[in-house]
């Protein structure tokens, strides 16, 4: 029969006896923690443009579809992607801004939005796609961070539908993982870090995309970075040629090892 209280005390007593050199009080513990060596790279050294470029590069390595747009173009860009998906039943988180929904609903025939105000699992399972915002993008690993706010949705929302469109803002992109942690004022209550579509390599190490999570990942990168906005409004610049106007200094150490095709 289990005796939870006794086991708790027993285990803690054993641990205390095993660690005679443990810090004696909270302030000594904090000092010991503060003294831990952290000589690793905290802040990346890429320019803003190169950082964004790296994020796009990483996402594409993961076979994600990445499209760029200015903040004003977002509603149109979203509608275009929804139409291109060939799907019709979409869910959106409770805090989804109306501009996401209205333009697409107006433009696409048969498009159906369901807003998640506590939907049943079955209802979410029936959806063909989902659209959410994100908290952060980490360029080094191509990671999308969700803290599951009202615009990012409950965890289940970005899990069951097979097609997932994430709206990420350029200003949300950091270069390194530690930069994301520095941005967090306090630990998130809930978080999901997504680095490419769900995958397995359990059979002969052959990478297979899409086991249980969404099999298709689309990222709309909203270029809210000033450099891009200033440029795109010039008459001689358009989406096709903008990259040669941007000051790119993509570090070769990142591009040298493109993931091997398995």
């Amino acid at each position: 029969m289990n005796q939870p209280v006794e086991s708790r005390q027993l285990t803690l007593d054993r641990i205390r006896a095993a660690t005679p050199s443990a810090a004696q009080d909270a302030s000594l513990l904090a000092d010991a923690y503060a003294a831990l060596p952290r000589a690793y790279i905290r802040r990346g050294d890429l320019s803003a443009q190169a950082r964004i470029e790296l994020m796009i590069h990483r996402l594409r390595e993961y076979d994600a579809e990445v499209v760029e747009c200015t903040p004003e173009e977002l509603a149109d860009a979203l509608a275009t992607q929804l139409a291109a998906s060939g799907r019709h039943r979409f869910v959106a988180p409770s805090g989804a801004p109306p501009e996401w929904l209205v333009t697409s609903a107006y433009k696409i025939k048969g498009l159906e939005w369901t807003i998640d105000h506590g939907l049943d699992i079955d209802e979410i399972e029936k959806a063909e796609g989902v659209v959410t915002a994100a908290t952060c993008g980490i360029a080094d690993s191509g990671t999308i961070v969700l803290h599951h706010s009202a615009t990012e949705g409950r965890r289940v929302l970005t899990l069951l539908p097979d097609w997932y469109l994430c709206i990420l803002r350029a200003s949300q992109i950091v270069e390194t993982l530690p930069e994301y942690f520095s941005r967090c004022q306090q630990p998130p209550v809930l978080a999901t870090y997504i680095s490419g579509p769900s995958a397995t390599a359990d059979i002969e190490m052959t990478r297979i995309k899409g086991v249980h999570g969404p099999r298709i990942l689309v990222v709309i990168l909203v270029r809210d970075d000033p450099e891009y906005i200033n440029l795109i409004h010039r008459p001689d610049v358009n989406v096709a040629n903008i990259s040669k106007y941007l000051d790119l200094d993509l570090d070769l150490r990142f591009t040298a090892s493109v993931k091997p095709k398995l």
Partner: protein
Amino acid sequence: MTHAGSERVSLDPRFAPPFPEAALIMLRNPQLRKNVGHAIDVIQTKRGKLVVEKTDWQELRSAASAIRVHALENLGVYLEEFEARCTAAGGHVHWAADAAEARQIILDLLREENASEVIKIKTMTSAEIQLNPFLQAAGVNVYETDLAEIILQLGEGEPSHIVVPALHINRSQVREIFARTMGLKNLSDDPKELTNAARTYLRQKFLTVPTAISGANFLIAESGTVSVVESEGNGRMCLTLPRTLISLVGIEKVLPRFQDLEVMLQLLARSATGERMNPYTSLWTGVSPGDGPQKFHVVLLDNGRSRILAKTKERQTLKCIRCAACMNTCPVYRQTGGHAYGSVYPGPIGAILTPQLMQMKYAQTLPYASSLCGACYEVCPVKINIPEVLLELRSQVVNQERKQAGRFFDLMYLGLRIANLIFATAWGFHAAQRMGRIGLRFFTSKDGWIHSLPSLGAKWTQTRDLRGLPKQTFHQWWATHAKEEK
């Protein structure tokens, strides 16, 4: 009948055969060795490229090691902090002193829920306490949801690796298992099709089974947050869809602060699967209204860990973050695969962890299942000096032997005791050299080589020749050389 090319193996250290014996069966299985070698080569190549790219790899290792040492040094405080925060966030924390207690706690929780079924995300800790057979015997159907674990569960096989547990099984063997157990006669051996079969097989379980069991990669003391790192999304399914979630976690898994993850997550995926980041990392804190399971239990498992914590050299074993880089690089594991280790924890980390969890009463051959080449220590992201612990455990095994009467019949034991006497004086050493030369003359061929020796020597000469002893030792030559100089 054996399925999937794997021999019947026992991963219970109390019943498993000694390592050399178990290894021999694996060495004679070409399919297994081919499968293992291929899988390891793929991971190693990917890992190698990513480690070269990471210019601060050594600094990350140092930080990770220091964080883990600090967390273990102050384990009591951090566990209590975790417990308080997790409880405040609506979670329930249970403490299990040993495997039996952990199993019982979990079964009681399942009974409270009237659960006849449970879905599981891969957890090494549950394998350690042999949870599945216990729950099955108590009438609870357990469904593993990790692709590799499904392959093993349906094929009635045992895991041979802690990250890719079915790496010893190839695609045609998976096809055979799925075709037979899922009733899919026309299944091909295309990994994509096989993966899809597993997706379809599990989808209904995810949507309907209301109780899940998970492990955890990290516990965050400051916030009471739990983290699980995975690839397939089966973890996210288990962690978000059910009503009730039970996480079984070893007490050593705690990290002081959320920020410590910035170190661990950079090391873990690169070391484990050769990815910059694994596809999905989940973090949750107690219970969140409207999002995920509304009942959450953490079972903190000691099961021998506090005993390891008490020992100076062995404590570092508990720094492990279960990335499996040590087994991927190990030249011994490369040849034998995981089953030879007779434990759910194979490879170098298993060779030090298993005997310690068994209080050195079982698995005494595991500390010797290493050539001490040091490759494991070199790759370990948290700098566990595995060779140092291996040597410490070997010394404990010998100290046990010293008390046993049987030692006088153990040629290795006797030989090393005698060798110690020989090396104690130059006179003894030189006399032994002379006797050796005479003794070995009988076994030495005309070409000056020994092709066959009796007894322990046969262990060498079964695959290797040995050069016969030369007429003159070096020190004899030196004596004449020194005279010439003068």
